[in-house]
């Protein structure tokens, strides 16, 4: 069969359309919708909030870093910084520890019972956070607290759960632990399931007890997973809004405000959106560092 010169040329120099249709580009086409969503809902708002934070209150004048400079001069802002770190570090530590303990207990349950308990223990995580926070608010309510009623029935004095700074911080952290622990538990449980039984058998033959098996088999095998879950949870916990907004609204006396709730108070409730954006952007370095470690751990895991 004769092949014309033009056909040869077309084959040598494929058109743009044929290139785009090729298998090589298919993946890019498939990823494109997600990329557009990320650009629209993450990248654009992020850069827009940076732009916003550099404007004056009326958003009519570029003021450079003035919003940031003004914030760091005031005690309340540093109180918020302290609150955010205290809240995040304490909550993540307890969530990770409790999650690991629960995962080990669940892993040692008989298979049938395990399924039921696994489902039950996921309920706090599955429930909408705003809804469960309302439940906790009812438990801690300053005057008619359900938990205080129980304490009083047992002859113990009730605690000022939401009206004293220390107890209010405890209340918000407890609520966060309750909500977040199942996430750690399910991740660790998946990790535990993937540890080959032969490693435990070998350890047992070598005379390892339960503690040694945990120390030399379980923990090293879960280390990467622990690092990833802790970092991931740090990001989510640091940016928390719902719990504090519902339980304390940042009180008493601003002692439970986090970056998210304080940014909402200043940005929306007092109408100073640029300064609200500046407060929210203070979270970025912390979250950025956490994200860096997550990605590094994942990359190392893949290697």
């Amino acid at each position: 069969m004769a092949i014309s010169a033009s056909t040869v040329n077309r084959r040598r120099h494929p058109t743009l359309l044929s290139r785009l249709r090729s298998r090589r580009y298919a993946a890019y086409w498939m990823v494109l919708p997600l990329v557009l969503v990320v650009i629209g809902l993450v990248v654009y708002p992020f850069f827009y909030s940076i732009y916003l934070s550099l404007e004056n209150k009326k958003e009519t004048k570029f003021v450079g870093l003035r919003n940031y400079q003004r914030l760091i001069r005031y005690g309340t802002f540093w109180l918020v910084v302290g609150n955010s770190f205290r809240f995040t570090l304490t909550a993540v530590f307890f969530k990770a520890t409790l999650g690991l303990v629960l995962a080990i207990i669940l892993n040692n349950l008989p298979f049938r019972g395990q399924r039921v308990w696994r489902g039950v223990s996921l309920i706090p995580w599955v429930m909408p956070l705003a809804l469960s926070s309302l439940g906790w608010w009812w438990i801690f309510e300053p005057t008619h607290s359900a938990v205080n009623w129980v304490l009083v029935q047992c002859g113990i004095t009730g605690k000022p759960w939401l009206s004293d700074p220390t107890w209010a911080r405890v209340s918000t952290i407890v609520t966060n632990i309750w909500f977040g622990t199942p996430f750690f538990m399910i991740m660790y449980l998946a990790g535990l399931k993937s540890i080959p039984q032969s490693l435990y058998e070998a350890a047992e033959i070598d005379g390892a007890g339960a503690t040694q098996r945990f120390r030399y088999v379980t923990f090293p095998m879960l280390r990467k997973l622990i690092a990833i879950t802790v970092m991931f949870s740090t990001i989510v916990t640091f940016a928390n809004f719902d719990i504090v907004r519902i339980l304390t609204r940042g009180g008493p006396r601003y002692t439970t405000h986090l970056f998210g709730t304080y940014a909402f108070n200043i940005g929306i409730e007092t109408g100073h959106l640029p300064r609200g954006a500046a407060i929210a952007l203070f979270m970025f370095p912390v979250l950025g560092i956490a994200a860096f470690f997550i990605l590094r751990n994942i990359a190392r895991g893949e290697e």
Partner: protein
Amino acid sequence: MAKITRRKFIKDVAVGSAAVAGAMAAPGVVRKAYTQKPKLSVAMWNHWVPGATDVLKAVADEWAKKNKVDLRIDFIGPSSTEMLTVASAEARAGTGHDIIALTTFDGLFFMDKFEPLDDVADYVQGKYGKYDEVSTYISHVDGRWVTVPSPTGSHSYPMVTRKDMWREYAGIDVEDIFPPDVRKRDPKKVDAYNYDAFLEACKKVAKAGHMYGNPLSECSDADDWACPLFLSFGSIPVDEKGNITIESDETLEALEYMKELAQYMPKEIYGWDDASNNRWIISGKGSAIQNPPSAWAVAKRTRPDVAAQLWHHDTPRGPKGRFRGCLFFTYGLWKWCKDKKMAKEYLKYMLESAQQWKILAAAQGYDMPQLKPMYSHPVWEEIGPPKGGQYNYIRRGDEHLIVGGWPAHPLIGAQIYRKYLIPVMAAKVTTGEMTPKEAMKWCARELEEVIE
């Protein structure tokens, strides 16, 4: 059977889709041609009083029907923060409802995006006289009516006293001092109802186990009783010129007073929210709070014995006068509204006495008008039990209605109010976290941050 190729399939689907779309669109086009009406959309506060929203909608629909307008009212809330969030999103997007109802200072955050409403305010004031001072303060800014006051949802914070308890434990008969007829008031008795007498009474009711309770926390109810108290001692956070004036002898005096008063209030007030004081009095533990008649309305359903004893009346007098907090609603008209003339006609109609008469009755006394002729509405005299218990919910005597942050420029006032600076400053003193002087200094620093 003919073979279906890929090309044929795509072609057939395209033709079919076009046919279906055409068929669906055609009736719409026809319908539109027949019923094209001007459209108006309103974001309105969702009233918590059962039935109030229905009456407002019926009144608005009458206007829409008469003027052949396609009117849509979205009822949002009842949380006013929800309204503010909607307004923020619409302002940023540059589209949304034509008219929006917002509380206190919130409308001012969007003043550049709102159409001036001077003609609406002039129309209403021309018919019913001047708006009260606080309504003018929050709506008439920088020489124009940015918003117009709306009675729907507006409320104030009078004393709500258990008249039986105060009579029995404190020897004060609030019904006698503030009877349901302003002409029957004895000026001497009213004058004697001051903050000193109030403190003494609080000591007595607390001793009997029935404390006076109001929040000292991050909520608007805290602002709405603490800010008026400070003003009645002459304490002003920021003056009209923008000078920070919180560090004063007057503030010191108010803080010392608060320190003493808080000893006779529940310890939980530092964690209370807007509804906590309601629950406090409804439970039967409390003997007085400061609140609109919402506490009474709930008590009427759940604790009629408590409701029958609740008397709404004036606040105590301080060295510089008698001040009562309020939380007023306003209407704003977005600049993107296509038919502003029609929107203004709607507002004028809704703010007329004939319409307000029906809406005020449906709100069962909760809504507070900003125009004096509407004070004569019978709802506050008739509603009960106790009959006359809400007569003094409307300002009848020498009180000044104010909103926290007054008299600073309203945009500064908004930050004082929404950062809850006065109640937080007071709480820092009453909990012993700071001395009064330290707390004043702290507040002054916070105010520096507020003023640009």
